[in-house]
């Protein structure tokens, strides 16, 4: 591929690329050609990246830095589901308006261990979820910030690699979203010995009361009102799924951890066995899938795990504490 030259056509092939950089200089060499190509081509170049990366790229761009938009509306990365949905709806709007866009994305917020796994899974499906709008985008990962096993997975979820010279090249290690998600189910968190809410349901008639109790418990744990509303809806849909499709009873537990509120929903069924469930927006008339999709758009992290005891869904709500490790719950 000859895509790295600033004037060479790269867009068509640069659907979902990754720049794994290890220094400021490398970041500039890898990414500036991608940015300049977009600016030369009259595209709206939008970058939602870490402050450090933005500063490095600005320096390299000189005056052209002012031609780049340094934020995606509604995107903060403080909660991954809403972040992913903010990018999707932004791309959808630009697509609708016929405005060519190219995007740089970098999540540098960190958080609990399972959060990187959640981000990688969203990144994996984004090849399709964002890809339908036809815009090129590149994800930035600072090699110094991530362990080797994470970097190995980063490579697996991006069909293209931005090389040290800025050229985009096909990536032999890429695996399909289905294969990636099947191989990397979300790691469920250990449930603490004491939880703020532990209830068991067997009928839909109990759903409203449990939803309200969960919202009240989340509020007492300090979850902001808007996040609590998202919890009520997202967790409510996951519980509804368990009641409609799972094997009862359905157990709901809720606790606080690292400034977030975790909801875990268990039923005794085998789950649906579909690794990609709820990652793609289902059609409006589909009988299933919408509830989990909604939950994924609202929660920071959604992990689904199936074991001998049944199916479990873990949802985390609220902004993650910066650089957060795990609090004892």
């Amino acid at each position, binding site marked *: 591929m000859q895509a790295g030259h600033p004037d060479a056509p790269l867009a068509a092939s640069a659907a979902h690329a990754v720049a794994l950089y290890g220094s400021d200089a490398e970041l500039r060499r890898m990414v500036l050609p991608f940015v300049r190509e977009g600016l030369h081509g009259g595209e709206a170049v939008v970058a939602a990246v870490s402050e450090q990366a933005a500063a490095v790229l600005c320096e390299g761009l000189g005056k052209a830095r002012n031609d780049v938009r340094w934020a995606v509306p509604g995107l903060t990365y403080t909660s991954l589901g809403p972040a992913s949905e903010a990018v999707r709806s932004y791309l959808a709007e630009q697509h609708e308006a016929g405005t060519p866009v190219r995007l740089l994305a970098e999540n540098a917020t960190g958080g609990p261990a399972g959060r990187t796994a959640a981000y990688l899974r969203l990144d994996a499906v984004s090849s399709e979820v964002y890809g339908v709008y036809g815009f090129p985008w590149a994800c930035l990962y600072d090699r110094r910030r991530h362990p080797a096993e994470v970097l190995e997975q980063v490579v697996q979820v991006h069909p293209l690699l931005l090389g040290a010279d800025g050229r985009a090249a096909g990536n032999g290690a890429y695996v399909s979203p289905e294969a990636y998600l099947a191989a990397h189910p979300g790691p469920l968190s250990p449930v603490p010995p004491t939880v703020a809410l532990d209830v068991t349901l067997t009928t839909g008639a109990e759903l409203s009361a449990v*939803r309200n109790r969960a919202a009240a418990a989340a509020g007492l744990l300090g979850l902001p009102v808007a996040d609590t509303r998202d919890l009520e809806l997202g967790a409510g849909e996951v519980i509804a799924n368990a009641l409609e499709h799972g094997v009862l009873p359905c157990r709901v537990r809720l606790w606080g951890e690292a400034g977030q509120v975790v909801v875990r929903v268990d039923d005794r069924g085998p789950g649906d066995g579909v690794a990609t469930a709820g990652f793609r927006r289902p059609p*409006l008339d589909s009988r299933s899938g919408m509830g989990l999709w*909604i939950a994924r758009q609202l929660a920071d992290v959604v992990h689904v795990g199936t074991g001998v005891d049944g199916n479990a869904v873990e949802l985390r709500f609220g902004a993650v504490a910066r650089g957060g490790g795990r609090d004892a719950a």
Partner: protein
Amino acid sequence: MWDGHLLLLHRSESDRLARLAAWVGRGLDQGEKVLCVEGAEAGNPLFGHLRGCGIDVDAAAEEGRLELLPLEAFSSPGAQDQVVDRALDEGFPALRMSAQADSARTVLTTEAYQDLERRIDRLCRTRPVSAMCRYVRRSTTGQLLRDVVGMHVAGVRDPTLSSGGAGSELVLRGEVDIANVDVLAATLAAALDAAMSSGRDVVRLDLAGVDFLGVSACRAIVEESVAFRDGGGRLVLAGSAPGLLRVLTLVGLPAVPGLELIGWDRPAG
């Protein structure tokens, strides 16, 4: 909230008694005559329950303010108007009456039962009458639910959902999830049917009093309005709660032809 021609869908005996007691208490407080239509086999257990809820049943019954009437004495044609006339003659400003309607359905023929419901509906619209028809929620599903809701479109009282409104407006309050999405579906379908048969092509669904709408409810709004919208009708969803706007938007309702969202506050950010 508790007047007009109501459909009480009760989930349990305690739910039934609590709501019936509230409804009776409200009537007595307002000086109305309260009539409970009971099957002959029912005896008089109701008064015991009302007494337990703090209602002075004996005084009310003594003074004719609270009365039990066997179904047979109430269901014959013409009997309902006579009951109303008698209450007004006795000096009451209004009459409210309640019956375990699903029991009545087992005693009367379907035609006689539907005729009775229609006559009660007419009384509620034309005379100072309120009626509460009680149904066991668990056994009121499917087509039966649609039929029953169709006769009480603006007076549905599910444990977590109630309906109101008139003409081209349907007002909902409460919560809708998988437990009562069929009630929402039946209510909306009946309201839109009524709109279509009277040639109205804009219906306003007021969701300002709705605290929770699940995905199943959003889907029902779309599916139940297909015929209305395909026929050129416009269904306007009015509300203000940011939580509701969130689910409506995520599910994709704003993009559905013939559905329109107005009056919603955009969530911050």
